[in-house]
């Protein structure tokens, strides 16, 4: 089931299925935020924003306004 990265839950593994490249900075793609890569939530800041993620081994924080442009799917183990 697809969802946006903004709704990611802790303790689950996800895979990035699609990114709307025109809406997010190229820098994020370059840091590994590309379709097919794994993503995990490490921590959420107070007020639920920004999100601290582990994308493909890169640890980074992005705001929710960016995260809604990235689609993810839960990996069932």
């Amino acid at each position, binding site marked *: 089931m697809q969802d946006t990265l903004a709704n990611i839950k802790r303790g689950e593994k996800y895979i990035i299925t699609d990114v709307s490249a025109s809406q997010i900075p190229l820098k994020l793609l370059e840091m590994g935020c590309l379709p097919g890569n794994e993503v995990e939530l490490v921590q959420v*800041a*107070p007020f639920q924003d920004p999100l601290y993620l582990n994308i493909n081994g890169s640890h980074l*924080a992005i*705001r929710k306004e960016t995260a809604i442009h990235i689609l993810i799917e839960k990996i069932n183990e």
Partner: protein
Amino acid sequence: MSKQINVALIGNPNTGKTSVFNALTGLNQKVGNYPGITVEKKEGICKLPRGVKAHIIDLPGTYSLNASSLDENVVIELLLNKNDKDFPDVAVVVSDVENLKRNLLLFTQIKDLEIPTLLVINMADRMEYKGISLDIEYLEEHLQTKIALISTRKKQGIDNLKQLIANYKDLSITPCLNASEIDKNYFDSLRKAFPNQLLYKLWLVITQDVNFGKTDRKTIDAVADFKTKSNTDLKRLQQKETIKRYQFINNVLKKGQNIDVSQAKDLRTKLDRVITHKIWGYLIFFAILLLIFQAIYDWSSVPMDYIDSTFASLSEWIKMNLPEGTFTNLLSEGIIPGLGGIVIFIPQIAFLFLFISILEESGYMSRVVFLMDRVMRRFGLSGKSVVPLISGTACAIPAIMATRNIESWKERLITILVTPFTTCSARLPVYLIIISLVIPKGRFLGLSYQALTLMLLYLIGFSAAVGSAYILNKILKIKSRSFFVVEMPNYKLPLFKNVALTVIEKTKSFIFGAGKIILAISILLWVLASYGPGDNFNNAEEIITSQHRDTPLNDDELQQKIASYKLEHSFIGLTGRAIEPAIRPLGYDWKIGIAIVSSFAAREVFVGTLATIYSVGSDDEATIKNRMAAEVNPILGGPLFTFASGISLLLFYAFAMQCMSTLAIVKRETNSWKWPILQLVIMSGFAYVVALMAFQFLK
């Protein structure tokens, strides 16, 4: 002359690139600016084997050659300009063994520019801890480069790296990615139009909004049969390029790198559970802030007092030992105190940068940015604005320099503009003396009124900063995408060498940058206070002596009377008189006026100026205080420093932009006089209005 080669150090942020630079150059480094912009340029010299000397340039950290900030533009501008005197003979790409995949993206881009490229894999000491093993031979073969596996922390592999740099001619310049794979038709037409140019270089010129000496760009636009694509199309192609590069990297790493997850230890997650926790996180942050304040106020007061007294006695010594004359006076009353005014800030600035560089090196700063972003965003600031706002309580100058890592120009500009509102340490002496004069000694709930007033002033400063940020955010019409991507680096123990070098280098840049201006202003002030037009100034001695012929005065008292009379009729005294009508509604007299005017050089000059004006021989604050308490308001009668005029003065100092050095730094950082002048006018105007209302309301 021995041969010198140009080496460029390039790498992602947080890869230990600066540690590599420090390991190679040691103290043989200098920091300057790129011409015309405020990006720091770090260069150094390193001796290589066989008598070769390397000129090493430490380029700003970047994730790729697709630049999104001034700092990153510097990197491509250098790499695309073969005629630049710093154009590298060899590019050394520094990567971190834990983030090799991401780091290799930049490596492949530089390789495609057909510059001899060497790969440094740093932090090799972490491999075992993270269960990583590498097949160096395989990687060297498929990345077509030489690899130096090093650890700057354990000082391993540096000699091997020097050897590899010296042998740079053996490096292959075969590209990693065939540029035309990105879009065959498009690149074919590009090749047809510019048969002699490197395709990837052309591609960068088209996609990057940077200045390449214009000709490159123009030649492309001038070719009629070649149509540049729309921005959306270009971005789609850049995305495709990134995906292609990652495919290449994944293929290479599949065999060349092995990560045994079961061996990996994960301290980071455990630490982050606490450090970025919604309650503990803030408590820890608050505790660290308290520690920093304590250090800046308490620990630095010892060396500051020492510097203060050293310069005072140096002045005294010059007065005693050099022949009397204008030059001696200029030296002892202008230049030496002026230099003292610069040097006295060194302890605070050094302490501040010590803490900031420890917080940054350890990886903690990114966590603060993460914790504070949501709160700061409401005010048009970024999580990254927290660092300057904290630093501003020591001194606005290093604080404004610390805004450089804010990517969005709008957020950065707002941060620069509001930072001077935070209560810097130079306001403290002014606050302390006025509070002790006008605020009663009583207690409220066990806290003294005086301490509460001081705390309130700090709060007023922060609120003014945040409030004006909110307003600026609404009125500034600057188009600037405020995307926010922060890498959360691993926690590391800071390296002593890196911290020490940062502290030395920042302190140096303060002394030589802002110091020049402080010195110039203090010389100017001295001239204005030491000379005056007309007979009143020139004949001060006779006038005072004749006035006091009947009253017996001892020599000291007479000298003080003369000095004070001279000051009143000096240029600065006349200025004070001239501005008196403007400041009288605020409850001040011309003497306070002079103190305020001279405070524009630096706020802490206030106390010293009043000390001179009230002709107090010594700098002892108790006596200045007594003198100030005894001053009589020339119009209203009664004491000059009342509750009303005192509060008015406190508020004036809280809001007014009275610091030449800050204005100079704002000019340097924004590259325009527009912003510092606006700051000066708006902040001081606001201060005037608030002080006026306070006095008229309270009197």
